[in-house]
Each structure stands twice: as structure tokens, then as C-alpha cells.
């Protein structure tokens, strides 16, 4: 407003006056100034003539609009309208929330690490034993061909003269440490000597890794996997003439007495129980958590201690 009081109107102000783009107060002041200022009035007059000239020139230049262009544009608008009607309106926030939930469900239930995390969380929160709801959720997480299999044979008593392997603190915790229960010293005490407890959880890969280490007695160690149609073994370190031979009911591991091999047997996951028979010792069963499907088990096939 200050520019309109006491001084000449700028060209911008004159255009705003000419185009009626001023508010009431600006308009009043401008009128008063133009009535008193011949220069600004002349300037406004010139500007109005220029605007009229330009409008006349632009108006004289006709722009033909072909019907074909208009029809094409209208068809495009109709297509856009059809697409918009075909897709139900969903707010961006709702779509983002749905995508987040889908992502969480995918990660939580469709990937081994996700199932392991969700399963372990459910196990921790549900107590021991888990409640019915937790059981159902764990069943869902670990659903597999063995889901309805009968419970495994009870763990047999350790053979006389056997000893516990010292594979680390987790090894002494017993199979329950890797299963769905908390470490149970009593269960660990029932382990056959020469066999350690599961020691490590590995969330990567779709395999159960069974690791034999220490000194192995001559003969064979057989992994029996319930209802297993496939089993394979792979020695990953320290091979000394060991052989891994898939059988109809599991995987036969033939080893050398002098072997110090530490090797890993890879068997398909999704099995609840793995039966392990060490030499002539009674068979034992290692339970695999229904939630956690990737495990490393260290099984020591000791024969009286290190060489």
C-alpha cells in the first residue's frame, strides 16, 4: 500500500488496477492518485492501449481445434475414468498399513528366521508347557509331514562306561536347550554318553546340521530321520575316509577308528525328531523345535576319550 501513497504507481500496480486485481482500499487510493497524477494516468492509458493491441492480435490469430484431437482426448479421459472405477478406492494410509502387515506376516511365518523368531517368542511367552493357543500357533509355525506323527521313543539310558562330551556350556544343557523347553539338567543326564547336546542354532539355510566331532569309534553312526524320504550327508571338514550313505530309513555314517574328523551331515529340515544311533549304543532321539527348523547338533562319537 505504501507504494500507492504519495508516489507514482508502478507498472505492476497499474496492471493490477487495470485488471481489477486490487482490494477495495488499494483501489480507492489508486483512483485518488490517478485523478491527481497526469503522468500515472497517461501511463495507465498507454498500458491499456498496449493490452488492447495485444489482445486484438492474439484474438485475430485463430487456432483451429480438430475434432479428432478432441475425440482422442475425450477417449483418454473415459479410459482414465474406467480405470479409476475398476480399482476400488483405498487410502494411501490403509494400503501402507496393509503392506506393513503383509510384510510382517511374510517375514514372520514364511521364512525360517522369521518362524524361528516367532516360535521362540511364543515359547518364551507361553511358559512350560505351552497353552493350547500357543500349541496351535507352534503347530502352525512347524506344520510339516510329521505334524501328526506319534511321539518319539523315549530316550534310552546311557550305555555303561560312556561319558559326556564337553562341547561347551550349551552342549551340557541337553536336547531340551534346542527344543521348545528350557534347559533341563535331568534331560541332559539322560543323554547317552558320547553324545552332546545341541549347541548352536543357525537360522540360515534349510538344513539341520549335525556335527560329529571328537574321536569316533569304528563302525557306524546312523541318523534316523522319521519319515525321511531324503537325506544326504556332506563332510565339510577333517575328512578321513568317512562315508555317508543314504539308506531307506536315514543316513548311515561309516567312520574310521582313527578318525578325528569333524564333519557335518546335512539333512532336510521340517522333522520333529532325529534318531541317532551311535555304534552299538541304544538309539536316542533328539527333538527339534517345531518352531526352529535350522539347527546345529554336535554329536560326539567318542570311544573312550581322545587318542
Amino acid at each position, binding site marked *: 500500500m505504501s507504494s500507492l501513497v504519495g508516489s507514482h504507481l*508502478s*507498472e*505492476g*500496480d*497499474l*496492471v*493490477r488496477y487495470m*485488471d481489477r*486485481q486490487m482490494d477495495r482500499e488499494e483501489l480507492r487510493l489508486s483512483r485518488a492518485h490517478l485523478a491527481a497524477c497526469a503522468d500515472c494516468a497517461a501511463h495507465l492509458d498507454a*498500458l491499456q492501449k*498496449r*493490452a488492447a*493491441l*495485444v*489482445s486484438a*492480435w*492474439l484474438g*485475430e*490469430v*485463430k*487456432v*483451429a*481445434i*480438430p475434432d479428432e*484431437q*478432441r475425440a*482422442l*482426448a*475425450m477417449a*483418454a*479421459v473415459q479410459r*482414465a*475414468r474406467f*480405470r*479409476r*472405477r475398476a480399482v476400488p478406492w483405498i487410502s494411501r494410509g490403509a494400503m501402507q498399513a496393509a503392506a506393513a502387515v503383509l510384510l510382517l506376516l511374510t517375514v514372520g511365518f514364511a521364512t525360517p528366521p522369521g518362524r524361528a523368531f516367532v516360535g521362540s517368542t511364543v515359547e518364551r511367552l507361553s511358559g512350560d508347557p505351552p497353552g493350547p493357543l500357543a500349541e496351535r500357533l507352534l503347530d502352525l509355525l512347524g506344520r510339516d509331514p510329521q505334524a501328526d506323527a506319534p511321539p518319539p521313543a523315549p530316550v534310552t539310558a546311557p550305555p555303561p562306561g560312556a561319558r559326556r562330551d564337553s562341547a561347551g556350556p550349551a552342549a551340557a544343557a541337553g536336547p531340551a536347550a534346542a527344543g521348545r523347553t528350557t534347559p533341563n539338567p535331568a534331560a541332559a543326564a539322560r543323554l547317552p554318553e558320547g553324545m552332546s547336546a545341541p549347541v548352536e542354532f543357525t537360522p540360515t539355510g534349510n538344513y539341520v546340521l549335525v556335527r560329529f566331532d571328537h574321536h569316533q569309534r569304528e563302525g557306524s553312526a546312523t541318523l534316523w530321520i522319521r519319515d525321511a524320504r531324503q537325506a544326504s550327508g556332506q563332510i565339510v571338514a577333517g575328512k578321513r575316509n568317512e562315508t555317508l550313505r543314504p539308506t531307506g530309513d536315514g543316513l548311515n555314517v561309516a567312520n574310521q577308528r582313527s578318525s578325528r574328523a569333524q564333519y557335518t551331515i546335512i539333512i532336510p529340515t521340517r522333522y520333529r525328531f532325529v534318531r541317532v544311533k551311535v555304534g552299538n549304543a541304544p538309539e536316542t532321539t533328539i527333538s527339534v523345535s517345531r518352531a526352529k527348523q535350522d539347527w546345529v547338533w554336535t554329536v560326539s562319537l567318542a570311544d573312550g576319550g581322545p587318542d
Partner: protein
Amino acid sequence: MSDRDTSQDQRLNVTQLFQEHYDALFRYLVRLTGDGDLAADAAQEAFVRLVERPPQNRHLRAWLFAVATNVVRDTARARARWLKLLSGSPDRAPMGDVLPAPDASAESEERRKLVRAALDRLSWKERTVLLMREEGFAHHEIAVAVGTTTGSVGTMLARALNKLSAELAPTSESLR
């Protein structure tokens, strides 16, 4: 009002908006760019966006022109026509040449070329504010379209009017 009624109203509104504003938008874009194909594409794109992402404000006409102006600017940049549009050549395809009126006389053809050449000498913003003013838009609507303040539109318009009239005045005297 039922959903069906609402849908029908929206359909009618879009059709009505198209019928009311397409020609003016196309004419404005041809004058702005001198390119009939580019103008047709931009006008169509503006109406498609109106359907797909309708604006919240009620100034749909101003919104259409602003969107189409932005489409033209972006497209021209993408096609490397931008420099050509800015530099402007009197010999390039003049406004309306791509779509000549059936009864276009030699005199009107000459005027079209002259106006096109004069418009090409304006900057993009000057040309936009001038042509939007010719279409009857308020200064605040022009300001939104060119991305400036309302107060500066008057100054830009004065500059554009002075430039264009200086270009056209001698020609006007000779032709009249």
C-alpha cells in the same frame, strides 16, 4: 445421495468440464508452445490427471491450466525442445500452422507468424502470464501456475505487454 448418484454427478462434471474448457486450454497451449501436438498431449494429460487425482480446490479451470502448463514445460524439457522454445525462431512452425483454419487467408497467416515470433521472444513466464491473462485468469491463479507471488504477476504482465506491443506495433501500423 447414493453412491451411484455421486458417481454419475462426478461423471457429468468431468464431461462438462471437458466440454467447457478443452478448447480454451488447447488454444492457450498452442499459443504458448506453437506446437499443436504438444498442446494436444498436454491438454489430454491435464484432463486425465483431473480424473485420476482430482484436486481438492474448487478452481478446476485454473488447476487444469496450471497442470497443462507444467506438463508442457516438463515435456519440452524432456524432448530437448526447451531451448528451441526459449530461443524462438521466426521461421519455425508458427502458432496455428499445425492446425490451419480452412479459410485461413494469406494475411491472417502472416499475422499468425508475426505473433508467434513476438511471443517466442518473451520468456516462458512472461508468455505464460500474458496468455493466462488473455484467458481471463485472476492474478493469484496465474501466480500459482508460474510459481510466483501474486504481487509480482502485475510486474511480469506489464513487462510482457510492453515487449509484445513493441514487437507488434510497427507491424500493426504497416498491416492496417
